[in-house]
């Protein structure tokens, strides 16, 4: 058990010093800052577009980080053979997988925290310049704590994406792992449509396959509460808890799967 901590710490250090990480975070923050300018175009909807853009940027850049740095976790380490001296130490292969995942989650958390601070900062400066009666008519306040709920759901979504990336990179090259992970993400977004397949297609076999896919593949659309949060529609705690449990179950399944594949792998 004690090997997981050091691995996570090392992964975190490597990731946050990576230029890719820095550039993505910087770009994300700039985009959020730019939203103040874009807000001028929206005829008084500044608060909405800043929140929309801020949350979208957080989600998108977090996705890039989860995929690109997540793929590096195992694929690059195997490709460059830095896994050789590591596995010769007192660490089991499952501990290696768990430690890698924990390190990347920590990296993601830092990224999300930076983007959230940037978003709240921009909202603060916006709210300072707008009189109170107008703010009272908004769907949700500028410095709305409910935004954190949206960020938390983004984190849950990305924790599943990271687990997918880790899973693929235990046996695929970096390029293939990235493609597969992105594919799963896109399919997962459309997942809800699969449920309504019977409205589009007639063949019962196709509908059965679609329904099976709907239940088995991760449904990423259920982690999207951005619209609700921006418009002040309440997000119940029970819903958040259920989503967290769903994410945890998926992550566990993927990590165990990764451990199984990784356990008997020959490093040629």
């Amino acid at each position, binding site marked *: 058990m004690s090997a997981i901590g050091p691995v996570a710490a090392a992964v975190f250090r490597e990731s946050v010093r990576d230029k890719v990480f820095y550039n993505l975070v910087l770009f994300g923050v700039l985009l959020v800052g730019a939203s103040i300018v874009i807000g001028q*175009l*929206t*005829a008084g*909807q500044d608060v909405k577009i800043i929140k929309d853009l801020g*949350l979208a940027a957080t989600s998108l850049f977090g996705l890039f980080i989860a995929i690109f740095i997540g793929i590096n976790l195992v694929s690059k380490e195997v490709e460059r053979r830095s896994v050789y001296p590591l596995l010769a130490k007192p660490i089991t292969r499952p501990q290696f997988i768990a430690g890698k995942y924990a390190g990347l989650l920590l990296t993601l958390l830092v990224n999300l925290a930076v983007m959230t601070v940037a978003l709240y900062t921009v909202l603060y400066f916006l709210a300072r310049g707008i009189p109170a009666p107008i703010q009272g*008519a908004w*769907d949700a306040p500028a410095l709305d704590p409910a935004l954190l709920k949206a960020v938390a759901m983004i984190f849950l979504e990305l924790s599943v994406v990271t687990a997918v990336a880790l899973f693929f990179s235990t046996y695929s090259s970096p390029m293939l792992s990235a493609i597969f992970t992105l594919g799963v993400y896109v399919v997962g977004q*459309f997942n809800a449509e699969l449920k309504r397949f019977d409205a589009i297609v007639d063949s019962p076999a196709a509908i059965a396959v679609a329904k099976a896919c709907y239940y088995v593949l991760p449904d990423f659309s259920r982690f999207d509460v*951005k*619209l609700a949060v921006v418009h002040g529609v309440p997000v119940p705690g029970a819903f958040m808890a259920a989503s967290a449990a769903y994410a945890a179950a998926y992550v566990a399944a993927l990590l165990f799967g990764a451990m199984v594949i990784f356990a008997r792998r020959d490093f040629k």
Partner: protein
Amino acid sequence: MRGPAAAAALCLAAAVALHAAIDRWPAPAVDTPGLLYVRSPEAARRAALSYRGIAADVYWIRALQHFGSERLAGPGHVKDYSLLYPLLDLATTLDPYFSIAYRFGSIFLGEPYPGGPGRPDLAIALLKKGLAAQPAKWQYMQDLGFVYYWHLHDYHAAAEAFQRASEMPGAPNWMRPLAAVTLAEGGHRNASRALWTELAKSEEPWLRDSAVLRLAQLDAMDTMEAWKRAKDQGLNLPIPNDPSGTPFVLNPATGGIIVSPQSKLYPLPGQLEPPR
């Protein structure tokens, strides 16, 4: 290396100059409907994945630009508002809670040509869609009443809408009296004045400005009638200025005065039809 650096700077300067020159050429006269990016709202909703909020914002901005540029275009341009409803429909399909899109649509979709497309039926469709997403939003019901009242002159339906709005949570307490007045005196200028006076208190600046303009137009119509009545009785009053400061002009057909085409209040409600 001096040579390649100078060459790079020169080529960049040439590119900039070329861009400026091309800009001056007349653009092809097609307003590309490709600006909609995606034709079907359902397809847009699927394509946007989990970025629907921001996609809706993009369409909202496009709708504002489209409406604004058409409305403010010079006399040589034939105004065409055909993209307004599709853009608002896209924005509200992507974000069903996008209240400003519904309300903007309700006011301006029904606006008669050349101020708007003159399609109150589309305004009603949009508002009903908004009510489907948020059935207890009294503002949408109020706007529905407004469209029936002002553009369709269906005072019974308008009164019913105001009544239902008054029963929704959070509705202001002038809603019920407005319903009553509409029922009793629909079409009379006083009832309209009551409606516009309430709308002039709105938090949306463009709605306020619209209401103020309407109230000025109603005042202008009052002044026009008073002048005509005076003339009929033999009093020849001098031609006054309308509430926006521009003088009225004589209308040879009726012998009365009418708002000048140069005035900000032109055209009064009912004066022009949109091209078919």
